[in-house]
Structures are given as structure tokens and as C-alpha cells.
């Protein structure tokens, strides 16, 4: 009897101590002792959750009385809300996240429009229609182990977003009912954007950059150029003024993605311009039409500039390898490289004269640099010839001196 009483007192003492440890929450104390994963996990995970770190407790979301150590802590009379149904999750989170005054107590820059955005998204609209397979807050942010967006472990950290979206969007079986492709993430992984992100550039676009995060919606045909243009401003402006703008609108073609694709946006090459086998222009333009001629002219100008740059680069490198000082010419050649970049940008005017204006400038610089490289190589050859002549002269002088010494010494001996 005494032993049982002592054990009970010790258990109560241990519970009390544990409760004190977890911010006096009986929820954590009891759930931590449970065995069923879905009941024990919240208690285990909550420690690293951003809400816990901000000082919130289980009761702040789920209600109930955290001071009550009995089952009555979870009674409706004590405001217990329990686990929300999927359809109720956005409202459940929005109780705080839509209250701007409340949210600003934690972070004055925090937005409070996530729910209103979510309701405009395809996910939000379908959830409202009763489709519980779509993503709600916890599907992307997690439950009970929610981390800040800036935390590299968070599923919504830029580098992790694609795999978070892929969780559903790459699952063909899960997405079967929606009749949309499931290879977007696989395509995206091949893109320059994914490569930049993999290299640690978190400003590189991921799914949410183009589609939005809470208000995730696929951009329509007419708004693709606007989406790309948020980062690629100059390209969007050039496209806007180009003959393609009106033609694409008339034909119902999306802007940028028509040539660059949507998810698999690979590094473009000069071969895309022109009428060759790999050109994107020839997918629409046929021989004889003005666009075909313009594409051909742009490709020729770019190729001419490329060739001039390669030639200058080769000659300057050769001269430099042989020890000639050509750094000024090399610096000047960077302006030709820059002109090539500008010319490639100007391709988006889809006017060959605009491209030629820049390639001509680049050609002039590249030719000048090439001449400097050739001159340096010629100078080197001149030096070597000069060296040869000087060495012969020196050898003749040495031989003459040697003979003179012999003559003097034989006279001295004599």
C-alpha cells in the first residue's frame, strides 16, 4: 500500500515537473505518453514548431484547458475545438493569420491575406466545392512542425518548393482525376531556373514564383509574358513592342513559353534563331515570308559576331600564352562579348535591323581586338627574328674576340 502510494506520488510529481517543462501544458504531458503515432507526434514535433517558439501552446489552436490534467481538459465546455476537418483547415489557420493586428505582434511585416489569396486559387476553389484532395495550408507547411519560410528545412523554403509541389503534382495516380500533366516538376528540374536554385541562388524562380503561393493559379495565355516579365523586364518590354505581340494575341499563342517552353526552360542557344534544323523560328515561319527572312538575317549577324569573337579570343590567347602583353585588347574584347549579349537580347524585337545595329558595333570591337592579337603575334615573330640576328652578331663578335686573344697571346709568347 505504502509502495503504491509512493509510486503514485512520484508519478504525479513527474507529471507536474514535465508540465512545468512544457509551459504548463497538460496536452504535451499526456500526449507524450501516448503510443498511437497520430496522438504522440504532435507532442514530439511541436518543440521545433515556429508557433511554439513564438510562445503559443496547443490550446491556442485547439482550445481546451491546458491546466487541467484530466480528460475534461478536452471538453467542449472548455472551448476545445479538436482537430479540424480538411475543409475547415484554411479557416482554422486564418483565425490568427487573417488577424493583422494579432499577427503584427509577432512580425510587423507579416501579411494577413493568405486566406483571401487561397480562396482565389484553384486549390481554394476546389476545396470550397468539397474536393478534399487539394492542398490546404498544412499540406505545404506541415502540421505541428511548421518552420519559417526562411528555414532551409521548411518544405516552403525556395529550394524545397518544387519537391513540395511534386508531392501531389508528380503523383500520376493522385492527380488522375484532374486531367493535368504530372511531369511539370521533372521538366522544371532540367531548366536553368532549377540549376540556379541548385547552385544556391534562392532568388531563382521555383513553382510559386510564377504560379503564386497561396493564390496558386496557372497563368493564362495572355498573362505569360507578364509572369516572365516580372524578372525578365527588358525581354518583356521588347516583346511588347515587337510584331509578335499582336500576332501571338491574334493566334491565341502564349508569349515567351511558345519558344522557351513553360517548365523545361533550358539555356537558349544561337541555333534557336534562324532557319536551321534547331531553330524555333522555323516552327512558324516558312521560306519566303518576311519573318523567315528576318530570322535568317538575325542568325547570320549573330554567327558573324560569334566568329569574330572566337577568332579574336584565339589570337589574343595565343599571344598571351607566348608572353605578350595583350590585357588592354582583352579588356576591349569584353565589350564585344557584351555586344553579343545585347544582340541576343535584341532578338526579342524580332527585327533584324535592331540586331544588326548591335552586332555591327560588336564586330568592330572584335575586329580591332583581333588585329591587336595578330599584331602581338607578328611582333613576337619579329622579336624572334631580331633575336636570331642579334645572337649571330654576338657569336661573330665572340669568335672575333677569341681569335684576337689567341693572336695577342701568341705574339706575347713569341
Amino acid at each position, binding site marked *: 500500500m505504502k509502495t503504491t502510494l509512493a509510486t503514485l506520488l512520484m508519478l504525479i510529481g513527474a507529471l507536474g515537473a514535465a508540465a512545468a517543462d512544457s509551459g504548463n501544458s497538460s496536452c504535451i504531458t499526456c500526449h507524450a505518453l501516448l503510443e498511437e503515432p497520430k496522438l504522440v507526434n504532435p507532442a514530439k514535433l511541436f518543440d521545433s514548431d515556429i508557433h511554439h517558439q513564438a510562445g503559443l501552446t496547443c490550446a491556442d489552436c485547439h482550445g481546451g484547458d491546458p491546466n487541467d490534467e484530466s480528460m475534461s481538459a478536452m471538453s467542449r465546455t472548455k472551448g476545445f475545438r479538436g482537430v479540424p476537418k480538411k475543409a475547415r483547415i484554411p479557416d482554422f489557420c486564418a483565425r490568427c493569420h487573417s488577424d493583422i493586428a494579432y499577427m503584427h505582434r509577432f512580425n510587423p511585416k507579416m501579411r494577413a491575406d493568405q486566406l483571401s489569396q487561397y480562396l482565389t486559387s484553384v486549390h481554394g476553389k476546389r476545396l470550397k466545392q468539397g474536393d478534399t484532395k487539394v492542398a490546404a495550408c498544412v499540406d505545404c507547411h506541415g502540421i505541428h512542425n511548421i518552420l519559417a519560410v526562411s528555414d532551409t528545412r521548411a518544405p516552403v523554403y525556395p529550394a524545397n518548393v518544387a519537391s513540395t509541389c511534386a508531392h501531389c503534382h508528380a503523383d500520376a495516380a493522385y492527380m488522375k482525376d484532374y486531367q493535368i500533366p504530372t511531369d511539370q516538376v521533372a521538366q522544371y528540374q532540367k531548366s536553368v531556373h532549377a540549376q540556379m536554385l541548385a547552385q544556391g541562388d534562392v532568388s531563382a524562380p521555383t513553382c510559386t514564383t510564377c504560379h503564386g503561393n497561396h493564390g496558386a493559379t496557372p497563368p493564362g495565355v495572355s498573362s505569360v509574358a507578364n509572369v516572365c516579365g516580372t524578372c525578365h523586364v527588358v525581354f518583356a518590354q521588347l516583346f511588347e513592342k515587337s510584331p509578335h505581340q499582336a500576332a501571338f494575341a491574334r493566334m491565341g499563342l502564349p508569349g515567351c513559353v511558345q519558344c522557351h517552353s513553360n517548365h523545361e526552360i533550358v539555356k537558349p542557344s544561337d541555333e534557336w534563331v534562324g532557319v536551321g534544323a534547331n531553330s524555333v523560328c522555323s516552327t512558324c515561319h516558312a521560306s519566303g515570308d518576311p519573318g523567315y527572312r528576318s530570322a535568317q538575317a538575325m542568325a547570320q549577324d549573330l554567327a558573324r559576331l560569334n566568329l569574330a569573337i572566337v577568332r579574336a579570343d584565339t589570337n589574343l590567347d595565343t599571344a598571351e600564352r607566348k608572353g605578350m602583353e595583350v590585357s588592354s585588347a582583352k579588356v576591349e574584347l569584353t565589350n564585344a562579348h557584351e555586344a553579343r549579349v545585347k544582340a541576343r537580347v535584341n532578338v526579342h524585337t524580332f527585327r533584324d535591323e535592331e540586331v544588326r545595329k548591335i552586332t555591327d558595333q560588336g564586330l568592330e570591337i572584335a575586329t580591332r581586338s583581333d588585329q591587336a592579337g595578330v599584331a602581338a603575334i607578328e611582333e613576337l615573330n619579329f622579336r624572334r627574328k631580331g633575336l636570331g640576328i642579334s645572337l649571330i652578331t*654576338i657569336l661573330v663578335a665572340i669568335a672575333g674576340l677569341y681569335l684576337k686573344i689567341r693572336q695577342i697571346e701568341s705574339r*706575347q709568347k713569341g
Partner: protein
Amino acid sequence: MSRLYRRTLAWFDERFGAGSVEEFLRHKTIPVHRHSLWYYFGGMTLFLFIIQVLTGILLLLYYRPTPNDAFESVQYMVTQVRFGWLIRSIHSWSANLMIFAAFVHMFSVYFLKAYRKPRELTWISGMLLLFVVLGFGFSGYLLPWNTLAFFATKVGTEMAGSVPIIGKWLLIFLRGGEEVTGATLTRFFGFHVAVLPGLATMLLAIHLFLVQQLGMSVPPGVERAIAEGRKPARSTPFFPNFLLRDIIGWYAALGALGALAAVFPWELGTKADAFASAPAGIRPEWYFLFMFQTLKYLPAKVLFVDGELLGIFGFSVAALVWVAVPFLDRRIGFGRVTRFFTGLGVFALGYMIVLSLLALR
């Protein structure tokens, strides 16, 4: 020709007794023995020094000693000025060959014991000349104001800064401030074209005067063999026999310099940037490598003494011992060679070669 020569000489003789110079030259002789080859290295060092003076003057026509202009002025010289590349390359190559020739000259004098009485002052003036030449190398290295020179100077002056008591003062004196800046460049330029040439001219005059006054030293072994009658005392007139042979060597050096300048033009590198990080594998010129490598091997602390400080102290003591060798090697005398000092020389030479090679690895 001979008549014209005699008349010209007579004209000068009337004015400052030039005939005595001719007389001196006619009677000056050089000993001939199996080590005579080493006599040529002094003349070779002098010839390369003259090349340095001449090419240095030509470089001065275009060089501008400010951090904004120094690199560009050298770049302009080697790309735009006719034969500017040749002058600059010869100046750089000749500097290295001169230091090499000076080292060969010093070690040959050391091993042939030419420092022994009465040539102690010749040895000391020669050693001081070598230090001046190293100073030329150190100060000249910074002048093109390129990245490598900038950081090598930073490291080099830092070493001077670790000398006890006067280190801080020495560092500020060398740099013209706490850091290597334009003030350092101006200062090094001043050392390179005014202070060191003045010192070198003075020391060279003393050195040459002593050489002429005391004549060439004959190695102790040869001296003893002659005294014991085992070998005849042979000599050759300085003028024209020895001088003509000297000129052959100088012509060969000129050819080598031209070849080096044409085939391996001295690199200019990139302009110094004080805010850039030091390039990887930075190291000083080859003639400082053995010291650099020693300091690298020394631990940060040896007992309670700073490792770098200990290294610098060690080299300073070694240099002092080396300069004072004529006074320390007291047992050397007529025909006798002290083995200890020969061993010391072999050790010093071996140490310098091995440590330099290790640094180049």
C-alpha cells in the same frame, strides 16, 4: 690609329696624368691557375649592374610612381613604346642574373678564401654591395604595382615589422604608414632610384679601389704550391688578355638576356588591388625563397619566443657571422685552409639551395 691614340693620351696626360692610368693598366696582371674562371664573376656582376643602370634610366622616361599610374605606365611601355618590352624585360631578367652572378661571386670568394688578410675590407664592401643589390630587388619588385608584387611586399614588410623594439618603426618607415599604399610605392621608388644607387656607387667605388689596390687573391692551395716550387707562378696581363675574355662573357650574357627577353618576356600580371584577397601560392623572388621557406617551417612559438621572430633573429646572426668571417676565420693563413669555415660555407650553400627548391615544390 696608334699615333692618334698616343696624341690623345698625351693630351689627357698633360691635364690629369692619364699616362699613369695607362701605365697601371699595362702592368696590372691577373694570376692564372685552375680556379681562374671564378675571377670573371665579379666583372660579370658589374656588367649586369651597368645594364641595370642603363635600362633603369630608360624605364624612368616613362615610369610614373603613383598607384594610379604605375601599372598603366609599365603596361604602356611594354605595349606601345618601341622596344619598351625589350628594355623592361632585360631590366627584370638582368636583375635576376645580376643577383645570381653576385651570389656565385660571393661563394667563389668564400670557398677560395679570398677574404683573408689583407682583403677583409674588400669582403665587407662586397657583402654590403650584395645587401644593397637585394634591396634593389626588393624595392624594384613593387614598382610595377601588380598583384603579386603588392602582396609579396606586404608579407616582406610584415617580416621587418616583427623585429623587436624597432619593428613597428621599421614597418612604418618602409611602408610610409600602417599599410602598403601609394606612400609605400613612392618610398620604394625613392629607395630604388636614389638611395640605393647612391649607396651602390659609393660601395662599388670602394670595392673596385680595394680590388685594384690589393690585386687578385690567389687561393691558399695554389699559393702554397707556388711557394714550395711545385707550380710556377703564372699570370696574364689584365689589359687586353683578361679584359677581352671578360668582354666575351659580357657578350654571352647580353645574348642570354636578349634570348630570355624575346622568348620569355617578363610578365606584368594584373594591377594591384588592396581590397582583393591575396592570390594563392604567393611567394617572394627566388633569392628570398630560402628565408621564406624557413619561416614557414618554424612553429608559431618556440618555447616562449615567436617563431617568425626567432627565424629573423637567426638570419640576422647568420648574416653578421658571414660578414665577419675574415675576422672569425683567424687560423687561416699562408697556404692553410680551416675546414670548419669551408664546411660552414658548404652548409650555407646547401641550405639555400635545398630550402629554395622546397619552396618551389
